[in-house]
C-alpha cells in the first residue's frame, strides 16, 4: 500500500522543520561567538545579519525592539510568534511527528519530544544559557537524524531526508548570500581583505570548520569558502551535497511509487547544472544573482514535490 | 398553467479550486398539483454526476468536478404544468409519517413573538398564520448569505421567503401541527420576474393532508409554485449544498427567471 499523501507531507515538513531548528541553533551559536567571543567583536551588525539570514528582519522590526544580542537571540530561539524561531519550528515539527506517530520509530519521536520539552522549560536570559540551549537542540537534532537513519529504509525515511535536503539547500544559499554581501566592503573586489572571524562564523554555522581544514591547506580564503559551500559534495551542507541528496531521495521514492514526475526532472536538471558549476566562475559572473536564482529554483522544486506527491 | 423556469448559479473563484463537490436538490417531481414537462441541469465544466433520492424522498444529484476550476455555471431550465386543485398535495414520495415534521430543529424554535402569531391548528388557522406573517414583516427577496434561525429572523424587520417559511414552520410546530420547509420556484407575485434566489415556502399537515402555504404572499400557495424539495428546515432542503477544495474567495451570482408560458 502506498503511503498516504498527508503522511508524506508531514514527514517532509518534519524533516524541514528539524533542519531549520538545527540551522537556527547553529546560526545563533556562531553569532554569539562572533559578537562576544571573537578577538574583534562584531557587535549588533552580526545580529542584524542573523535576522537577514533567517528571513526574520520584518517580523523582528514589528516587535519594536532594538537589534542586539539579547533581543535577537531571544527572538530567534524562544519567540513563538513567528515561523523563524527554534521554538516555532519545534512546535511544528512535533505536531507533524505526532500526526505520523505510526510511521516513526520511538527513537525518532523521542528526540523531537525531548527537544520540545527542553525548549519549553523555563529559563533565564543569560548568553551562556542560550549557548547551552542551542547545544541541546543540536544534540537532539543529531539524535533525530541518527534515529531516522536507523529507521527502516522506506518512504518514511526518504521523505524526512528529502525535506531536510530542500531546507538545508535554502539555508546554506541564504547564509552565503547574506554574509557575502555583508563582508564585501564597498568598492572592494571579492577576494580582497577579509575578516577572518566572519568567515569562521559562516563555516561554524554549517559545521564545516574541520572540513575546510581538511580540504584547504592555505588558510581562510573567501574563494575557497565559497567553493566549499557551493560545489564540494563531500561537505554535507554544501549546495552540491543538498542537490545530490534531493535527486537520490526522489529516485528512491520513484522506485517505490513506480513513477517519476516534474519534481524528478527538475531535481535532475539542477544536479546536471551543479556538476558543471565552478565556484570561481560564479564569483566572477555574480554570486548574488546565482544564489538568488538557486533559492527561487529550490522553492519551485519544493512546490513541484508537493504537487507530485499530492501534499494538498 | 404552464410555468417556465430558468435558474443560473454562477461561481467565480479568486483562485482555481482543486475539487468541487455539490449536492443539488434542483429536480422537481410530479405531484397531484404539478407535472414536470421537461427539466434539465447543465454544468459548464467536466463533472461527474450521480442521481439519487435522499431520505426525504427528494430527487438529488451529486456533482463532482475536478479542478482546476475557476468558474462554474449551473443552469436549471425547465417547464412544469400546474393544475388547479384546492385539495391537499398528493402523489408525493412520503418516506415519513407527518409526525416527523413536528420535530423542532435548532432552526425552527419558536419564541413569544412567533407563538403570538395566532392560534388554531386547522386549515383556516394555517392560512391565517401565513397572512399574519405576511402582514407583520416586509418581504425582501435579496438573499441572505447564511440561514438564520426563525427566532433570529423574527427579530428583524425585513425577511426573505426562507425566513418567513421557517417562522411559519416554527409557529405551526409550536401548535403541534406538522409543518415542513419547501424549496422551489414561483412567479414572484408582482412585476419583478427575476430574483436572486429560488423561492421557499411551507407545507402544513392539516385536515388529513399536506397543504402548501406561502407567507411571502400571505396565504395558500397557488398555481404558480413549482415544488422541488422538502425537509425539516431550510438547511435540509437547500437547493445547492457544496464544498470546494481550494484557497481564495468565491463570488456567487444567482439569477432566477420564472415566467408563465
Amino acid at each position, binding site marked *: 500500500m502506498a503511503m498516504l499523501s498527508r503522511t508524506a507531507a508531514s514527514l517532509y515538513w518534519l524533516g524541514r522543520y528539524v533542519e531549520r531548528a538545527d540551522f537556527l541553533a547553529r546560526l545563533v551559536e556562531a553569532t554569539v561567538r562572533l559578537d562576544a567571543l571573537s578577538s574583534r567583536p562584531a557587535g549588533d551588525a552580526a545580529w542584524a545579519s542573523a535576522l537577514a539570514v533567517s528571513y526574520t528582519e520584518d517580523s523582528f522590526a514589528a516587535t519594536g525592539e532594538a537589534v542586539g544580542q539579547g533581543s535577537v537571540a531571544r527572538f530567534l530561539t524562544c519567540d513563538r510568534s513567528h515561523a523563524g524561531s527554534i521554538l516555532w519550528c519545534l512546535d511544528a515539527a512535533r505536531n507533524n511527528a505526532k500526526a505520523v506517530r505510526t510511521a516513526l520509530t520511538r527513537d525518532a519521536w523521542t528526540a523531537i519530544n525531548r527537544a520540545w520539552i527542553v525548549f519549553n522549560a523555563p529559563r533565564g536570559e543569560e548568553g551562556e544559557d542560550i549557548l547551552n540551549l542551542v547545544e541541546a537542540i543540536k544534540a537532539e537534532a543529531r539524535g533525530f537524524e541518527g534515529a531516522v537513519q536507523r529507521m527502516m529504509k522506506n518512504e518514511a525515511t526518504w521523505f524526512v531526508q528529502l525535506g531536510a535536503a530542500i531546507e538545508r539547500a535554502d539555508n546554506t544559499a541564504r547564509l552565503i548570500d547574506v554574509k557575502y554581501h555583508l563582508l564585501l566592503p564597498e568598492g572592494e573586489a571579492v577576494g580582497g581583505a577579509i575578516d577572518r572571524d566572519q568567515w569562521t562564523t559562516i563555516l561554524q554555522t554549517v559545521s564545516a570548520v574541520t572540513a575546510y581544514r581538511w580540504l584547504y591547506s592555505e588558510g581562510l580564503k573567501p574563494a575557497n569558502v565559497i567553493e566549499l559551500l557551493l560545489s564540494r559534495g563531500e561537505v554535507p551542507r554544501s549546495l552540491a551535497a543538498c542537490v545530490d541528496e534531493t535527486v537520490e531521495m526522489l529516485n528512491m*521514492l520513484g522506485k517505490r511509487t513506480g513513477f517519476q514526475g516534474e519534481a524528478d526532472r527538475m531535481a535532475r536538471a539542477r544536479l546536471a547544472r551543479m556538476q558543471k558549476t565552478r565556484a570561481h566562475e560564479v564569483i566572477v559572473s555574480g554570486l548574488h544573482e546565482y544564489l538568488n536564482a538557486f533559492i527561487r529554483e529550490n522553492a519551485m522544486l519544493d512546490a513541484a514535490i508537493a504537487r507530485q506527491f499530492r501534499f494538498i | 398553467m404552464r410555468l417556465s423556469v430558468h435558474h443560473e448559479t454562477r461561481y467565480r473563484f479568486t483562485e482555481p479550486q482543486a475539487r468541487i463537490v455539490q449536492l443539488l436538490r434542483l429536480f422537481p417531481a410530479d405531484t397531484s398539483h404539478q407535472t414536470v414537462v421537461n427539466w434539465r441541469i447543465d454544468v459548464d465544466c467536466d463533472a461527474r454526476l450521480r442521481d439519487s433520492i435522499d*431520505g426525504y424522498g427528494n430527487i*438529488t444529484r451529486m456533482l463532482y468536478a475536478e479542478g482546476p476550476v475557476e468558474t462554474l455555471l449551473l443552469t436549471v431550465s425547465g417547464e412544469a404544468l400546474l393544475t388547479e386543485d384546492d385539495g391537499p398535495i398528493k402523489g408525493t414520495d412520503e418516506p415519513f409519517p407527518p409526525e*416527523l415534521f413536528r420535530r423542532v430543529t435548532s432552526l425552527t424554535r419558536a419564541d413569544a413573538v412567533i407563538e403570538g402569531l395566532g392560534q388554531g391548528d386547522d386549515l383556516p388557522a394555517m392560512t391565517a398564520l401565513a397572512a399574519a406573517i405576511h402582514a407583520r414583516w416586509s418581504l425582501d427577496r435579496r438573499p441572505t448569505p447564511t440561514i438564520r434561525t426563525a427566532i433570529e429572523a423574527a427579530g428583524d424587520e425585513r425577511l426573505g421567503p426562507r425566513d418567513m417559511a421557517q417562522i411559519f414552520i416554527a409557529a405551526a410546530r409550536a401548535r403541534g401541527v406538522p409543518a415542513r420547509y419547501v424549496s422551489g420556484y414561483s412567479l414572484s407575485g408582482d412585476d419583478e420576474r427575476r430574483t436572486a434566489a429560488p423561492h421557499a415556502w411551507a407545507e402544513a399537515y392539516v385536515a388529513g393532508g399536506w397543504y402548501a402555504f406561502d407567507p411571502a404572499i400571505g396565504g395558500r400557495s397557488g398555481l404558480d409554485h413549482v415544488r422541488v424539495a422538502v425537509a425539516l428546515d431550510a438547511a435540509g432542503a437547500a437547493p445547492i449544498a457544496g*464544498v470546494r477544495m481550494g484557497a481564495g474567495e468565491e463570488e456567487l451570482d444567482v439569477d432566477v427567471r420564472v415566467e408563465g408560458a
Partner: protein
Amino acid sequence: MGQAFDEIWGHGGPDHPRTDLAALARWMRGVPPHELKRRLQSAEATFRQLGITFAVYGDSEAAERIIPFDIVPRVFMADEWARLSQGLIQRTQAINAFLDDIYGERRILKAGVLPPDLIFGNAQFRPEIAGIRPPHGVWAHICGIDLVRTGPDEFYVLEDNARTPSGVSYMLENREAMIRLCPELFRNFRVAAVDSYPDRLLETMRSVAPPGAGAHPTCVVLTPGHFNSAYYEHSFLADSMGVELVEPADLLVDDDVVWMQTIAGRVRVDVIYRRIDDDFIDPVVFRPESLLGVPGLISAYRAGNVALVNAPGNGIADDKAIYSYMPEIVRFYAEAEPLLPNVETWRCREPQALKYVLDHLDEVVVKLVDGSGGYGMLVGPTASKQEIEDFRRALIAEPQRYIAQPTLALSTVPTLTEQGLAPRHVDFRPFVLTGAQTVQVVPGGLTRVALKEGSLVVNSSQGGGTKDSFVLMDDAPVQSQTMGGMTQSQGGR
C-alpha cells in the same frame, strides 16, 4: 443503600473471599502493598511514554493525562461470562434489528411498541439517511454495552453505546501491562486472551465490505486528527490492524466512490471505521457550515459503494430516552425475554414518573437524556442541597430532557489506595462485534473504577480509573506448570 457486593471478597470481607476466588484473594494478601504500588507506577510510566493519554474537556491541549490504572484485576468466572455473553449478543442483535427496522419498514411503530414521537421527535433519528440499507444490513458493528453489577448473579445494562464506543485500547494495553507486571497471575489462572481483538475487528470490517469490493477490501480507520482526545486509540487500532489511519482530508469522493489520496495516486476505499460523529462526516448532508468531513461520503454510502463502521444514524438506538424501552425492543425482535435487564428507569417526560423523581431526588440518579461523560448528572445520595435544588428547577423546566434511576449499590473490586487495598465501585464495558455472518463478544472489556471512596462516578473525566478484566476459561485454577526436564539438572553434586 446497603453494603455493596464485592466481586472478589463477596460480602465477607478480605478474610472470607468468594470461594471461587480464594486463590486470587491469597495472591492479593501475598503481594505487599508497596510491591503492588511499585508495579502500578511502572505501568503508569509505560502508559505515559506510549502516550496513552486523553484530553480532559475544557482543559487546554497541554493537559494530556493518563487514565489511572489499578493493578488488581476484576474477574469473571467462565459460567458468569457465558451467561453475560448470551445476554450481550441478544441485546446487540436487537439493536441491529431495531436500527434496520426503524430506518426501513418501522414495524415496531406499527406494532405500537414505541410511541412514534419518541423516534420522530428525537434528533438522533436522522431523516437524511433514511432509506439507506448498509452493506449486509449491519448497523452497529461495534457495540459497547455498559454493565453494572449488584450481586453474584445480578447484572444490569446501564447504557448502550452503538455510535463510536471507545476504550478498547485500554482493554488491550491494560492486559499487556498485567502480563508484564503480574506474570504469576497468568500462570495460576487460565485467563482468556483479548489480543485477538484487532484481528477480529478487521475480520468484522472485511465481512461487511460492499459486494463490489472484491476479495481484498481496503479498510481504513478515520480519525478527526491528532488533536482528538481519543487519537491514541485511533492510531493504536489502525496500527494493530495494519490499516491506514486517515483524516477527512485524505479521503475524497468522486462519482460516488471513496478514494484515499496516496503518493502513488488514488486508492479505492471499501470500509471505513469512522471515529467521527455523524454531524461531521459529510458537510454537504450534515452541518453545511462544518469544514470537517468528507463531502459526498453519504452519497457514496447511499449508492452502496462503501461500508461505514458504525453506520450513521445509530444514535437512535443508544439514546437515553430509547434506553428505557430496550426491554420491549429486545422482546419485539428476539421474541424472547431479555437475558440482561435494564436498570429501572423513570422517564421524566411522564408526569407520574416526574412526580416520583422530584419526591425522591436525594435517593435517585438523574441523567440528561443527551448527556455523556458523567456531565449533567445528579447522584442524589451524595449531592449537596444546592445541587439537588438546581436539578429540581431544571427538571421542572424541561422534564423531557431527563431520566432518573435508583442509586444502585454498584459492586466493588478491591483497589490499591493509599491505605492499602480497599473496595471501590466499578462498572464494565464489554465489546460486541457484529459482522456479516457472526456476532461475537471479546472475552474481556474495560472495567472502570471510581477511585474516590464511596463514589459511583467512574468516568475518566471525573477521576475514574481502569482495571484489567479477566475472563477465566474454566472454574478451576490451573496447576502451575512444573519445570521438569527444562532446567539444568542439579543432581550429582
